[in-house]
């Protein structure tokens, strides 16, 4: 097995991590950096619970090798709040009752953030489509969709 030392930025801070060649980004976050907010629901790229932002794009971290992340910028659910202030999508998920067991929530939040970053005014279908890789067994999805819609409106107003 090969071993590497990589340098990357996680939630704004620079990290140097020793990893084995077959370690996934998900494992590195959870086991090496103690960032357990990112969840493991399938370890095979099918549930979205492990979604993080990698260089601005939402990726399933269980399908990315940690070795590929040298020099990358990663944002996890722990990095969404800025200066103690929650991200708009975090607030709207809370306000609209879109969280039950919470296990899908970190991945949902990241997918929503990625969507709003690249498309600040998504249609309902675009929201549903962007979230279709994030399985949730509890909420029935509509409150999550509504929360993203409202978040987009709030950000639209703030930007205006």
């Amino acid at each position: 097995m090969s071993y590497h030392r990589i340098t990357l930025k996680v939630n704004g801070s620079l990290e140097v991590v020793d990893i084995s060649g077959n370690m996934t980004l998900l494992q590195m976050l959870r086991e090496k950096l103690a960032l357990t907010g990112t969840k493991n629901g399938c370890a095979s790229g099918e549930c979205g619970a492990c979604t993080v932002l990698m260089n601005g794009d939402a990726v399933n971290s269980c399908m990315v090798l940690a070795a590929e992340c040298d020099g990358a910028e990663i944002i996890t659910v722990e990095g969404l709040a800025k200066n103690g202030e929650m991200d708009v999508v975090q607030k709207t998920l809370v306000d609209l009752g879109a969280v039950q067991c919470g296990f899908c929530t970190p991945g949902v939040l990241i997918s929503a953030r990625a969507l709003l970053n690249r498309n600040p005014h998504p249609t309902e279908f675009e929201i549903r489509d962007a979230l279709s890789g994030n399985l949730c067994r509890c909420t029935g999805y509509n409150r999550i969709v509504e929360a993203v819609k409202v978040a987009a409106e709030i950000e639209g107003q703030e930007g205006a």
Partner: protein
Amino acid sequence: MAIAQASTSSVVGKSVKRIDVQEKVTGAAQYTDDIAFGNALHHCRVKRSPHPHALIKKINYDKALLIPGVKLVVTGEDFPEYVGLYLQDRNIFARDRVRFVGEGVAAVVASTEEIAEKALDAIDVEYELLQPVLDPEFGASKEAPIIHPDLEKYEHPNFIFPVNGTNMANHFKIRKGDTEAAWPQCAAIVEHTFRIPQVQHVPIEPHVAIAKAEENGQVTLWASTQSPFAQRALLAKSLHIPESDFRVIAPLIGGGFGCKAGVTMEAIPVAAALKLKGVPIKLLLTREEEFYTNFVRQGLVIKLKVGCDKDGNLLAMENTMYWDGGAYTEYGVNVTRAGGYSSTGPYDIPNMRTDSICVYTNHPVGGAYRGFGMAELHTGVGQIMDMLADKIGMDRTEFHLRNCVRGGDVLATGMVIHEVGLPECIDKVARALKLGEKEAPSAPNKLRGKGIALAWKAPAMPPNAGSSALVKMNADGTVNVSVGGQELGQGTFTAMAQIAAESLGVPYEAVKVLGPIDTRYSPYEWQTVASRLTWSMGNAVRNAALDAKKKILDIVAEAWNEKPEDLDIKDGYVISYKTEESIEIKDFVVYGLPKADDQGWLGGPIVGAGSFMPTYVTGLDAETGQGERAVVHYTTGAQGLDIEIDKDTGRITVLYAASAFDVGKAINPDMVRQQMEGGFVQGLSSAMFEECQLVGGEMRNPSFVDYRIATAIDVPEKIDTFIVETAQDDGPFGARGIGEHPLVPVIAALANAIYDATGVRITNPPFSAEKIYMALLEAGVVN
């Protein structure tokens, strides 16, 4: 001192935000897999049977033990005792034979997961194949090979009726009135057989458990579980550990839906830990294992015959159910019983004959699944009622209203039912859906239709399932409430905080109900199942809060020389209605009150304790199913869908859905709605997509790619929910449960909508596009 302002609004009935939401949106919430155990952590993997039915001739694991990093291999030889919730028919590892594909025959403990996994290949198991039983009806027949020759020796409570010498682990019967005499009086009769496949629970968090045994006899289990106390009781008994030495710690869980109730894979690391003391041993199931080795929702074959008079009054029903219990029915026997005593569905039927039979097969083990048999039962009952309404030529809604259960009805078991708001639920859904109005499809190649189905469900549990709670006062006026029921995402911690605040007379914000549940410190709770917590644990919390309140008022009464009856607690102040005096409770709930003139002290730290256990549920006769009170209560409701079907593909689009349930009293209305929405979508997912494809006993689709569940694009944009409140006489503030019920009627309601749209009755879920298209083709609706 000025009198504190009496609180004007009550927190029960308010949609406060859930108590655990902040940590869940920031990633701080700790689930079992998030707990760090450091370098001592060892990993466990399980050697599983590839055969549905075989004798184990020999297990050789010598080679596995030679692999560097492997610490231990355990097999069934090491753990001879049985486990099981209702029928003790299961061992931790298969012993002399395997009974389903995926059954554990051995476990390896190693320093890493990879090594443990690799070591599994070094274990040789020699099998002698046996004929498997793959169909419950066949399994119940005389020709079927016997899967559990020791059935007669298995321990079980007196309300489970195994048939010795057969594969029937439980045979529940109802004989009420005389169905034979009723058939000639019927103006219309419908008979049909429905088949419902096994489905999987699919919590997004897979099962995970870590166990550690100490040299001093203490055993600790950290697990993603709905049932820390039941796990302690069952495993302690099976492994000969005193309950006081067995600690189960249950952090937040990422969805359960029944599959994390009772004991499942947690037994394996606990067993291993007893053989390798001093190190924590972890077992985390892969998603594949999650699909094929865990409890499934049992399959069901339900044969129904139902008849009514010329005015549409139901006269008789015969209901024969063959439940595919799977390889072990320790939990499933009670699903069969629940299906039996509720076998009429929410209808008033004077003559009833029921045979609800739990059959051993060589399929995955059936267990609890949100609804506990009711979704399966209602798939048949909910459709056949529409079929009968059509046959007698009556408007379907009118037929449901005419025949649905109402307060005072004598149910099929002989129990007289309490007041229920079912007619109001039907009415609300029918209006919301504009049932009876045919609406135009959105395109010429589409068919549009609407369907409705009713539901009822009682908490299915032993008659004496109990709850307890502690209310602990703090010196700053805040309150910690300890409970043993688990937060699964349903919001129970929030509801308990509301009940405690209201009962005690303190602001909601002052009350904290938090996990993890820890059997060493948390008060007893039977299990977090059966939609029973709001009602049962809610009563315990209310009793504990009232106990604390009484202790507080007694102190003040003595200090003020008043009667406790003249005092009350409002917004955290004790007030006297007589003298208008008041005192903030934080001033004395821990340190007590000084007596006048420094002549000593009154009171001391206040802890309120409360319990609740129903004491009135009676047994039912083994031959007739008759008894005074079969269950504690029923939650009832109705649900409907407006759908379109694409004639070219068979694809269903749900345009709109409406649900109404009688919850007695909504402690937190918005969270009640969340249950209604989420439960509906889980039900819709099972109705449209889900099926464990079992071929020769093997599940062919154990992944999210092949076992599809609903995603954000599959659900209707609009789901309306209606809360009906007919108070439960023994519920806290009148509340009863709602967690499972919204899932119960969905399959039947969708089937009825498909029929309404197409004129073709497709009875057996899942209603995949392909299945619908083929049925439309066969019926000549498309060509």
